[in-house]
C-alpha cells in the first residue's frame, strides 16, 4: 500500500479484526506474458460493501477473477502475492472449490444460462448445497425480486434488468459469505440501476453479506459502499472511505465528472488527465 495515498481515517486495515478478504500485493499474468495486475493490495472487512473503481482496462475484473479463481479458464495466473479469505490462502485453488468456501462471483454481463428457466437458474445457484433449505431460499430470492416469480419462460428472454436480478438471485442461492459483483449497472436504465443498488444495499444490511463491488458508475458505487479503492494500470492508486473518495478532487474529476460552471470540455479533460497521473 506504500504508493497509494490513503484518505480518511478509518482504513479497514486499522480495525482490530482481520478482514474477511485480504489481497496482498498480487501480480497477475495472462498467457505467461501480459502483466495485468502489478502488486495490487486490498482488504474487505466482514459485513461491509467495498467499491473497486477505475477506468476501462485498469484490471478491476481481473482482480475479481483472481479472487474467485476464474482467471485460470482465461489463461491467467496469479504469479506473486497472496489472496486470503477468512485466513485461508486461496491461491491455486480451483474456481469450483472457491465457491464452496463462500465466495461467489456475479460476472460481468450477467451470464445467466439463457436456455434454462428462471427457476432452473436459481436452483443451479444452489448447486454446492446439500441442505433442505433450497426451497425456502428460492422464496427468499423472490421476496427481493418479486418480478422474477412471474417469469416462467426461458431466462434468455428476460430484460436486461431482470437478468441482472436473476444473476444476483442466483448468487444468493449459494448462501455466500462474500459476493464479488462485476458491473451490476452495465446496460441498465438509470431507474433500474437505482433499484439494483437499493437491493445490493439491502442484501448487505439484511443478510449481512459482504460485497466487493466493481463499478464504472462510481457515484452509485460510492453511495452504497463504506470504503473504496481506485485502480489504475493494475495497481491501487487511491483508497479511502466512500465519503472521502466522493469528495476527493481527483476522483471527482476522473470518475464523477466535473459539474457546474467550471465544467471542462472533453478535450480539455483528456489532456488534463494525460498531464496528471497518479503514477
Amino acid at each position, binding site marked *: 500500500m506504500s504508493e497509494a495515498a490513503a484518505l480518511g481515517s478509518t482504513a479497514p486495515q486499522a480495525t482490530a479484526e482481520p478482514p474477511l478478504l485480504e489481497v496482498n500485493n498480487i501480480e497477475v499474468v495472462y498467457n505467461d506474458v501480459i502483466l495485468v495486475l502489478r502488486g495490487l493490495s486490498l482488504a474487505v472487512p466482514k459485513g461491509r460493501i467495498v467499491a473497486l473503481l477505475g477506468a476501462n482496462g485498469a484490471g478491476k475484473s481481473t482482480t475479481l477473477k483472481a479472487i474467485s479463481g476464474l482467471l485460470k479458464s482465461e489463461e491467467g495466473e496469479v504469479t506473486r502475492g497472496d489472496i486470503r479469505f477468512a485466513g485461508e490462502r486461496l491461491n491455486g485453488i480451483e474456481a*469450483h472449490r472457491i465457491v464452496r468456501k463462500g465466495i461467489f462471483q456475479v460476472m460481468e454481463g450477467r451470464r445467466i*444460462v439463457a436456455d434454462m428457466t428462471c427457476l432452473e437458474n436459481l436452483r443451479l445457484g444452489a448447486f454446492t448445497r446439500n441442505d433442505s433449505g433450497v426451497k425456502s431460499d428460492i422464496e427468499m430470492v423472490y421476496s427481493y425480486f418479486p418480478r422474477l416469480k412471474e417469469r416462467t419462460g426461458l431466462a*434468455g428472454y428476460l430484460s436486461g434488468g431482470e437478468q441482472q436480478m436473476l444473476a444476483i438471485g442466483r448468487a444468493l442461492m449459494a448462501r455466500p459469505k462474500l459476493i464479488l459483483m462485476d458491473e451490476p449497472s452495465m446496460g441498465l436504465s438509470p431507474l433500474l440501476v437505482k433499484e439494483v443498488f437499493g437491493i445490493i444495499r439491502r442484501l448487505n444490511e439484511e443478510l449481512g453479506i459482504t460485497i466487493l463491488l466493481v463499478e464504472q458508475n462510481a457515484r452509485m458505487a460510492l453511495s452504497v459502499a463504506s470504503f473504496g479503492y481506485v485502480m489504475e494500470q493494475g495497481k491501487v492508486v487511491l483508497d479511502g472511505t466512500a465519503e472521502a473518495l466522493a469528495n476527493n478532487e481527483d476522483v471527482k474529476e476522473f470518475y464523477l465528472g466535473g459539474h457546474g460552471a467550471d465544467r471542462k470540455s472533453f478535450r480539455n479533460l483528456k489532456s488534463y488527465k494525460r498531464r496528471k497521473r497518479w503514477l
Partner: protein
Amino acid sequence: MDLTLLFQLTLNGLIVGALYGVVAMSFVLIYKASQVVNFAQGEFLLVGAWVCWWFLTEWQLPFWMGFLFTLAFMTVFGLVLQVVVLRPLIGEPVISVIMATIGLGIFFQALMKWIFGVFAKPFPPIFATERVQVLGLDVQTVYLASLAISLLIMLGFAWFFTSSKHGLAMRATAFDQQVAQSLGVSVPKVFAMSWAISAVVSSVAGVVVGVVNGVSSALSFYGIKVFPAVILGGLDSILGAVLGGVIIGLLENWAHYLDSQWLNWGNMFQIAPFYALVLILLIKPYGLFGTRNIERV
C-alpha cells in the same frame, strides 16, 4: 399391398427407432457436455453387449445380475475412457479429438474380435415366451421389453436434466463452462459423468440388440446409424435425438416395405436413412431442433 406387413414394419420401425433414439441421446449427451463427436459410440454398444454375454455364458449368472454387472462395468469403462484418453485432449483441435475417438472405435472393434471371435454368438434365452401377439401382430418379447426400456431411459433423461442438480449442472456446462465453474460445478467431473452415463445407456441398447440378433461386430453399425438420427434432430438437442431416432427407424422400415413390395432392389433400404440425412442437411442444416441462440436485441 400387404397391410399386415406394413403394420408389422411400422411397429418394428418404432421399436428399432426408439433404440436408435436411445443411442442418439447418449451420443448427444457427450457432444453437448464436452463438445466431442464420439465416433466410438457404436463400440460402446458392442463392448456392453459382449461384456453382458460374457457374464451370462461364461459365469452363468442370471440375466438381471449379469445386466447389473454390465452397467457397473460400463460406468467404470466410460469414466476411465474420459479420464485417460479424452481429458488430455481438452483444448486440442477438434480434428485431433475426432481422430482419437475413431481410433478408440477401431481399437475396441478389434479387441472384441480378438477376445470373442468374429462370429455372432446368441444370448441364452431370457424370456420364457419368445413371441407375443399385440393387436394381431407378432412381436418378439425382447422387442417389447426394449421399447419399455427405451421409454424408461428417456423418462430418466428427462427427469435428470430438469430436476436433478447434476443434470442442471451438465446443461450449464454445455451452455458456458466458465459460468458453470462460477456456480461451483467441476467441469472435468461433468465431462467424466457424461461419458459414464453415455457408455451405460449405449450398453443397454447393445444388450437389447444383442439379445435379438446375437452379438457380433455388426452391432457397432448402430453407431453409424445414429448420425442421421442426431443430425435430423439437431446435434445438440436431446429431444431431437429421440425424435430423429424414431423417424430414422420408421424410414428404414418403410423403405424396406417399399422395396419388398415394388422395387426389389435388394437391401438398399439399409442406407435409406442416409438419403434422408443428405436431404435434411440440404433443407435444415441445423436439424429440426438444433440450437438457435437466444439473442436479445
